[in-house]
């Protein structure tokens, strides 16, 4: 068993251990969760340290075990420059959640087990090199998140969880149809991603457009992009804070990662044909997400809509990669998109954890219920301000690195994408307005006496923000991993 498989199976084993110990209230669960999360970060660090660029389209830490040979599917995992950053991000986000939930009182045993289960499915998905394996982790992540929202959420959690499950499950079925199309389009039939890369199924076949359509719809629901985003705000609003952090930080990336891992390299011809539609979807997602976020008075819904906006940038960049234009510009756009996946995970994860602080103290996310919070809770105000500035793309944070590359590359490849630029301005405005409403002015509403950040909250959210600053100031180690993979992807897409 390779280190990569260990990274997938270890959280599962830890989850089973928590469940079998029958610890429903005990402190054992949090120790196992935190210990496993630390171990996963260490494994990710070792993977990172031992990763040497394997050459274009090659995988590191590859492993293949027979699974369903009769339909050409196997347990096939491996890592390249597109997946390694996301696997690392997964480990980091879950560690932050383990720290944040250190003092959680509500059925900590099953809760820790579910989070560990989700960690395994997330890492498995980013490592999967087989479509059926990808689909397996994709679906299981939905199941795990359903139970987290339904079991530990608040508000109208049952309804939000149901909506989330049905909607994203619909996406997964569209994805499955696309995968079956790819399988039948390849000779010999296979679900193996590297083999499909060699086979280039449905090349020159108009059916390829439909198959890509199914894959794109499935991934767009998960990402989510306009018009498939309506499940996201209620799911976030009613999920527990750590659930939201995982949902925004990791689960949304499963959609965008699917584009770079499956849709673009396996169906490049169809991707190029779809480019105009995708650019439009990207632009609309950026602008609409930002505008609707601007109109929110609920802090968590606002952050959820900024996710639609941030994911829009990624779609925009990936669509631009199929739009022709210069090779260098398109590579820059794709590198920016992958960097944005990591950056958004760190920053939005932190934002959701910080938003959860309000709910745990005051029972509401309504920005109108607070005012002048900077007085009673100065540390909290500082942390939130840093996170907000990071999210609006201030230089010095990871978001700036990502969005600068996205726009530089996209506009170079497809000038029309400049239409999305106002999204940056609107985002800046809405974050500044939120900061103003909650933290400045007279101390009123639920603000007086609101307890400041506790160590667990500060370390978890603060850790994510520190990493965002690190990427913002020293992006080279990350970009060195992503850039060769982007170059390979752009050469695959061609055009």
């Amino acid at each position, binding site marked *: 068993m390779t280190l990569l498989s260990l990274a997938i199976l270890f959280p599962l084993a830890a989850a089973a251990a928590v469940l079998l110990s029958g610890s429903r209230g005990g402190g054992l669960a949090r120790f196992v969760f935190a210990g496993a999360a630390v171990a996963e970060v260490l494994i990710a660090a070792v993977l990172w340290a031992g990763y040497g660029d394997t050459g274009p389209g090659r995988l590191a830490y590859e492993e293949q075990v027979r699974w369903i040979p009769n*339909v050409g*599917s196997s347990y096939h995992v491996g890592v390249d420059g597109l997946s390694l950053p996301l696997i690392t991000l997964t480990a980091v986000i879950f560690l932050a959640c383990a720290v944040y939930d250190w003092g959680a009182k509500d059925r900590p045993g099953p809760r820790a087990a579910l989070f560990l289960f989700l960690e395994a499915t997330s890492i498995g998905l980013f490592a999967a090199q087989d479509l059926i394996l990808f689909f397996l982790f994709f679906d299981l992540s939905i199941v795990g998140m359903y139970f987290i929202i*339904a079991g530990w959420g608040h508000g109208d959690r049952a309804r939000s969880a*149901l909506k989330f499950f049905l909607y994203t*499950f619909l996406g997964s079925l569209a994805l499955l149809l696309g995968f079956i199309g790819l399988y039948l389009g390849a000779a010999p039939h296979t679900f193996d991603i590297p083999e499909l890369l060699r086979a280039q199924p449905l090349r020159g076949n108009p059916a390829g457009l439909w198959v890509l359509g199914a894959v794109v719809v499935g991934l767009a629901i998960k990402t989510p992009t306009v018009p498939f985003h309506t499940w996201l705000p209620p799911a976030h609003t009613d999920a527990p804070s750590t659930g939201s952090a995982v949902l925004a930080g990791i689960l949304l990336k499963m959609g965008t990662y699917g584009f770079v891992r499956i849709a673009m390299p396996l169906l490049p011809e169809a991707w190029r044909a779809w480019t105009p539609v995708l650019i439009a979807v990207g632009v609309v997602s950026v602008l609409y997400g930002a505008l609707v976020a601007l109109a929110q008075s609920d802090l968590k819904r606002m952050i959820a809509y900024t996710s639609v906006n941030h994911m829009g940038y990624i779609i925009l960049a990936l669509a631009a990669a199929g739009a022709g234009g210069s090779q260098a510009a398109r590579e820059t756009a794709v590198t920016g998109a992958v960097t944005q996946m990591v950056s958004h995970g760190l920053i939005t994860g932190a934002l959701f954890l910080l938003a959860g602080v309000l709910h745990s103290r005051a029972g509401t996310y309504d920005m109108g219920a607070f005012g002048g919070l900077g007085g009673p809770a100065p540390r909290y105000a500082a942390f939130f301000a840093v996170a907000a500035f990071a999210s609006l793309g201030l230089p010095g944070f990871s978001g700036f690195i990502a969005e600068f590359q996205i726009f530089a590359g996209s506009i170079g490849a497809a000038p029309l994408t400049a239409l999305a630029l106002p999204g940056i301005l609107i985002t800046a405005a809405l974050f500044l307005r939120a900061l103003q409403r909650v933290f400045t002015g007279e101390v009123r509403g639920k603000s007086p006496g609101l307890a400041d950040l506790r160590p667990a909250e500060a370390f978890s959210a603060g850790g994510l923000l520190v990493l965002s600053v690190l990427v913002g100031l020293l992006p080279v180690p990350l970009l060195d991993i992503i850039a060769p993979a982007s170059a390979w992807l752009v050469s695959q897409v061609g055009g």
Partner: protein
Amino acid sequence: MDAGADALVLLPEILMLAGAIAALLAGSFLPRERQWVSRAIGVAALAGAVAASAAALSGPGASAYSGSYVVDALSSGARLVVAVSALLVITLGTDELRGAERESETYTLILLASLGAMVLAGAADLLVLIAGFLLASIPLYALIGLARTPSGAEAALKTYLQGAFFGILLMLGVTVLYAAAGTTSYSGLRAGLGPASGAIVGVGLVCVLAGLMFKAGAVPGHFWVPDAAEGAGTAAAAFATTVPKIGGILAAYRLLEHMPPTVAWPLLVALLSALTMTLGNLAAFAQKNPRRLLGWSTVSQAGYLLMPLSVAGAVPLALPAVLVYLAGYAASNLAAFAVIGAYPRRNLLTAYEGFATARPWQAVALVVALLSLVGTPPTAVFLGKLTVFTAAWDGGFWWLTAIAAANTVASLFYYLRWLAPAFRAASPDSPGAGDFNPRPWAAGTAVAGAVLTLAVGIGGGLAWAGLP
């Protein structure tokens, strides 16, 4: 071929028959509280049938009685799935049947109806098909009626009337096909029917298929399924929604393979499939009783099972797809029924509030069973859905695959209507609140069925690859 060799080929079937007779005889001499002996006889017969079928897997295909009964991959699959399903039915029904006044008779009927399902799958002659239909149906009517409740009587009567009607249709169809082909043997059907008029062949085939759809619980013969699921005893309901399907679906598969291309049967079967899955789903939406919910859910599952039948013989994946789906479906459906068997008096979905807190492992078993019926990986039905979707699309029915995908999403909705209350905390006014005291055998079967469902889902692909 002499009779001894024929008998050896039919060893699993003979074991089942002998077990049925022995259980009946033993039951007549046993006092009511010592009827576990006939249960042991039934279990031994089924275990023997599993062993004999498994042993026959490695051998070459065979046929008995001048080719009227075939042992091949299809009937071997049927034997194994039927026998294991019947075993699970007996274990989940142990608490319910123990000491009942008709206990031994129940085991006898289960064995006979299971034997009927096996005969249906192995029949390679229209006359044997009729015999199999009757053998699978008549014990089933009695099983459903054994509950001795008003709703049980109603369900038995409904099933009997529909069974009689569709049985007559089946015989009519056999007559027409025989008249057109001049033979009842499958091996001669294609050649015999080739020159016949398409209309006549079509009429005959439609009538035979209607009879088999009654067994499969698919449109147009599906009306009895929800009533049987609700009105019969739990073990009988679990049996009725699982085992007859296996016989009906596989019998239809074998017959369709021998149909001439003069009739457009693939399209007919595809339409039946789409209709069945959609109708079953729509009817399941509004159900508040978990038994009826599962009853309608099994109707929709019959629709997915018909998908590969529409490409029978045209796509290499079609036969494995049917078998994989049947195995996965049987394990998942029986696990779900075992949960009902553990709490027979909870007849409302809301009565399961607080279930997860009180009985976490059984709740997990329920999750596995229901999510498997939805088709979530890595469960058994996912493997089935993957293969039937692929097979249907490969045979040109991409629209059927799309309809099936849409139905799959829709089905998630009503399965969650059972899971959601189970994972909610019980409120003081939830019906049957508080103590979940399970019937131990049924609860154990639920967990075992869930484990089997996962095992088939994860290891099924390798087992399938290892078959000769």
